[in-house]
């Protein structure tokens, strides 16, 4: 019954925040699906450091239940054996499902809007074994919540967001809590403010940060397992009607992590492809 409850929650609640299609590729953003819209994302997300690399590829889908509520699910597969800190800005091997609610939506004029979106979801360990400090750990599901606010217009975008992930304990092991935050600025040059039947490009500067708590193993916190890092990098989003391609890379601005445990993480990159299927169904006559 408990398992059924978790599965039900996973399928009706939702994960957030992994930005895609309309927004940045690393940071948190506010867009949600329109009512009846189905969005599908497929991407490659990579992290590289002195103790190896980790690449995740996955498919995510979202469905707009109302104009302001979207349910999502993301099922990644991870490769590599890098000893890297826990991250929820970058997808790992965890399956996530949840719901996003755009609770503030203020349209101020043509092309402009201010909005805030909250997300809540469940995070379930995927079938792949963990690597690095988490290798051999007993794993349990967790919950993830995010909040993002921002401004969108034809010329500029600005989003701020934060998230928190907490895992349950399994056999006295527990993955670290993660606090993450992001700030994203986007710009579309005047020459690219064109009709919707042409490619729509915009560039982002994405600042992300994460603090992970200590890893609990056999009931004790593993020494030097807590980390803090801040990352900065560009990304570019190209959209044609209902197809979006986005790519970006980040380098560390600040890093407080044990090199003996995690090595020196040097780069993060992401490449995402999105397909959006809008609903032409209209309810009334």
């Amino acid at each position, binding site marked *: 019954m408990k398992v059924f409850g978790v599965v039900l929650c996973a399928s009706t609640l939702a994960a957030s925040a992994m930005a895609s299609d309309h927004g940045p590729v690393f940071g948190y953003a506010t867009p949600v699906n329109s009512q009846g819209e189905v969005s599908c994302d497929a991407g490659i997300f990579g992290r590289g450091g002195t103790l190896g690399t980790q690449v995740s590829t996955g498919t995510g889908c979202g469905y707009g239940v109302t*104009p*302001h509520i979207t349910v999502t699910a993301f099922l990644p597969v991870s490769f590599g054996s890098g000893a890297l800190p826990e991250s929820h800005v970058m997808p790992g091997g965890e399956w996530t499902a949840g719901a996003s609610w755009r609770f503030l939506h203020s349209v101020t004029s043509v092309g402009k809007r201010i909005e805030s979106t909250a997300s809540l979801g469940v995070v379930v360990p995927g079938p792949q074994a963990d690597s690095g400090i988490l290798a051999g750990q007993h794993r349990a599901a967790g919950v993830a919540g995010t909040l993002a606010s921002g401004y969108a217009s034809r010329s500029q975008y600005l989003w701020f967001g934060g998230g928190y992930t907490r895992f349950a304990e399994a056999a006295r092991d527990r993955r670290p809590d993660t606090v993450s935050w992001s700030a994203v600025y986007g710009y579309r040059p005047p020459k690219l403010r064109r009709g*919707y039947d042409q490619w729509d490009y915009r560039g982002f500067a994405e600042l992300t940060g994460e603090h992970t708590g200590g890893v609990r193993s056999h009931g004790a916190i593993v020494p030097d397992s807590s980390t803090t890092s801040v990352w900065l990098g560009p990304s570019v989003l190209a959209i044609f*009607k209902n197809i979006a391609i986005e790519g970006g890379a980040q380098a560390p601005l600040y890093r407080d992590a044990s090199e003996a445990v995690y090595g020196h993480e040097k780069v993060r990159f992401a490449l995402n492809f999105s397909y959006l299927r*809008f609903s032409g169904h209209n309810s009334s*006559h």
Partner: protein
Amino acid sequence: MKRLLAVAVFALFGVVAQAQYAQVNLTVFGMDCAPCAHAIHVSMKGIQGVNTVDVDLNTGLVTIKLTPDNKASMRQFNEAVEKNGFTHKDAEIIVRGKLTGTAAAPVLEVTGTTDRFALVPATAGLDIASLLGKTVTVAGVLPQAAKGKVADTLKVKSITEAR
């Protein structure tokens, strides 16, 4: 010249199109990117009787042209905007219907739909009363209405007897 052009346009609509709503120009707030416009395009095209849809992201203007004898209602156009998370503002429409009511309070009953609008002249000198009981083609502005609602007053810019 402008007036001549307007008369020519209405004469053309009178002859060629027997549409109820012939054209709806809807200003939409909040669209910033191509998928926003595409979503509006798909939603509008999903309304039976819509012929062409053009979306201008820089002005927010959605221009909908309809086929003759359509039964589309104004509520459907508004819903197509709302379900995509945007807001509709004033709409300029060209519509055909029967003029009922009284000389003091004329009402347009849009042919083939349940839409009814109280007519208010937008400019002085419009002779609405003489067309009572006739089928007319009206060009006018529907003011912004609350979400889920349709304005009940149409500000008439021009009105002619439909052929």
